């Protein structure tokens, strides 16, 4: 498969590039291919939004990059960071990258801090792990700096996690990730558990990140609005594959893939007059449908979609997409463009 390289982002080398990354979970029914051949690049200071429905492999991809997969999960492919392939490193060396080079912010800030340890303990432990030579004062200074950037007063340094609100705890988690100044951060639905005002605040903080530290960010979310606000580029994920990626404005104004279009239409805004949703649910990843994985739910499915995997090609305005509607025409077999009938879809659904 041809790698999806974004040429438009910037001329500098990407901080992280994923090539044909796969992650699968072994179950008694067979392997669940949660991430199935995903490629992307993220430039320094760039934010890539990863959107998609629940269960399409977004979080698994984020964890796969960090090496935080549960036992029984396997990964494959290449993740290039700083000239080295993280996935083929010795586990010990890959572990050493965590925190200091690759950071992670999680979805549930309420349960991510150890309730028995003070905030100061969390910071001291984290900084000491990566900078054993620092004195106690230097550690404290760095921790307080990180807290101040997140708007948390130094007087709260010795407090316990339960003494903070949800939004503050998420800012603590961000501060804990930032204190090591990692080059790349995976933010897995960082605002999902928070109310809208706090959400706006966190989005603002993430926005400032890339400006102030040139931190690259993979922002996993199901909220298209956040992508529009906080991301440079967007990757739309469906059933373990990135079906479309490109600059946010391009993709949102001119979606090429029907799934992207349906996802955007399903977003609720002030202009929304009726609720739109995509019928059906994401496919079974143990035995995904043949051809394009979206074809059973696709309003514009053609005969070719049910038989042949779509080819990853460049979008007309930059970025990549994989959908037979976009092409390449010469690869579509004869008669392949006739619309897939509803009965055929129903049969496919039954099976």
């Amino acid at each position, binding site marked *: 498969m041809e790698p999806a390289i974004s040429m438009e982002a910037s001329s500098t080398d990407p901080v992280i590039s994923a090539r044909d990354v796969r992650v699968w979970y072994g179950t008694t029914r067979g392997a669940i291919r949660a991430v199935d051949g995903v490629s992307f690049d993220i430039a320094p200071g760039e934010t890539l939004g990863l959107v998609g429905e629940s269960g399409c492999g977004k979080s698994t991809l984020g964890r796969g990059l960090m090496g935080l997969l549960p036992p029984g999960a396997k990964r494959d492919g290449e993740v290039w960071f700083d000239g080295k392939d993280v996935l083929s490193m010795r586990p010990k060396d890959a572990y050493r990258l965590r925190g200091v080079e690759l950071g992670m912010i999680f979805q549930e800030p309420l349960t991510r801090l150890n*309730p*028995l340890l003070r905030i100061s303990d969390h910071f001291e432990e*984290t900084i000491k792990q990566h900078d054993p030579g620092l004195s106690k004062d230097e550690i404290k200074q760095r921790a307080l700096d990180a807290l101040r950037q997140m708007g948390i007063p130094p007087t709260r340094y010795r407090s316990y996690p339960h003494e903070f609100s949800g939004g503050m705890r998420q800012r603590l988690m961000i501060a804990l990730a930032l204190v090591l100044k990692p080059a790349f951060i995976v933010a897995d639905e960082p605002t999902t558990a928070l109310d809208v005002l706090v959400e706006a605040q966190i989005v603002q903080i993430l926005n400032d990140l890339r400006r102030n530290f040139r931190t690259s960010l993979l922002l996993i979310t199901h909220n298209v609005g956040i992508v529009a606000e906080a991301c440079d580029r967007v990757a739309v994920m469906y059933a373990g594959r990135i079906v479309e990626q490109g600059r946010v404005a391009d993709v949102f104004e001119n979606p090429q893939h029907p799934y992207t279009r349906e996802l955007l239409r399903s977003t609720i805004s002030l202009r929304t007059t009726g609720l739109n949703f995509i019928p059906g649910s994401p496919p079974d990843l143990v035995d995904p449908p043949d051809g394009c994985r979206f074809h059973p739910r696709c309003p514009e499915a053609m005969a070719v979609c049910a038989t042949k995997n779509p080819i990853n090609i460049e979008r007309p305005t930059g970025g990549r997409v994989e959908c037979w509607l976009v092409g390449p025409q010469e690869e579509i077999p004869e008669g392949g463009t006739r619309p897939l009938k509803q009965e055929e879809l129903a049969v496919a659904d039954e099976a």
Partner: protein
Amino acid sequence: MTGSRSGSLPRYILQRVLLVIPMIWVILTLVFIVLRVAPGDPVSAALGGKLNDEALDQRRTALGFNDPLIQQYWDYLSSVVRLDFGTTFSDNQKVLEVVRDNGGATLSLTLAAFVIALLLGIPLGLVAGRYRDTVPDVVIRVFGILTYAAPIFFVGFLLQAYVAKPLGLPTSGAAGVETVFYMERDGLNKTHVLLFDVFLSGNSYYIEDVLKHLLLPALTLGLLICGVFIRLVRVNILQTMQSDYVEAAEARGISTSKVTRRHAFRNALVPVITVIGLQFALLLGGAVLTESTFNWPGLGQRLVEYINDRDYVAVQGIVTVFAIAVVLISLLVDIVNALIDPRVRY
């Protein structure tokens, strides 16, 4: 959310200590009611058939059993407040003296059993939880179930039959005859707890003798509780190892050994401490059986004797002492818990 944030520990401890008073009052009341509701009375139970009705009634009046219940209740409470638990019926001893003379043996037995259970149970539980579904885990789990399920007297007999002989360990009593005799003659029993007294005396012969006597009974009782600890620690480790904060610590690159120690093990022990307090009641119950099996001169064995003699005053006194001990232990557990877990203090 003001200044008293993490500093409210002293206030919490004070509250908790004050709470002991109503708890003990409830226990005393319960003991009182249970003994009055039980059919018959101590006098006719002890002397019925030996004296005529008039004489029995005279004794009842003398002992206050004919007073109105509320009067008896008041007398009982006010004497307990003065630490007067009454005089036993069958052998005319002060209950407090019975407790003093025999409580020490029970104390050293339960203490030693507790230490054995902790030393065995917590490390085994940690290993089983950390290396889940491996051979050590399976072996430890089976061991835990067996020790918890096996009856005390059975384990006691097994140890007496197969361990005591080859190792030359005594199987009966808390100390050899000489030790008891000379300790008493030389006035060395200062604390009335033989275990402490021999250490205070500094005489290695006495110390060895007492420890040898202690080993098998303490092991018997300790194994029972250790099974509970193993399962409890294991389950909690499994939970904390999968907790969100452990994953978050791993994501920050904290080394695996530190994550296991500081985040998983430490947090897993919090619920264990709470249950340890509850297990203390089981320990006292087990002590009664262990003492009978090993002819241990403790409070449990005296309790069995007094129950056989239908000596209600003695039973009431000893049960009250046991209950108060459980209350005090749970106070201690709560304070330790508050020291470890900041969330408890609110």
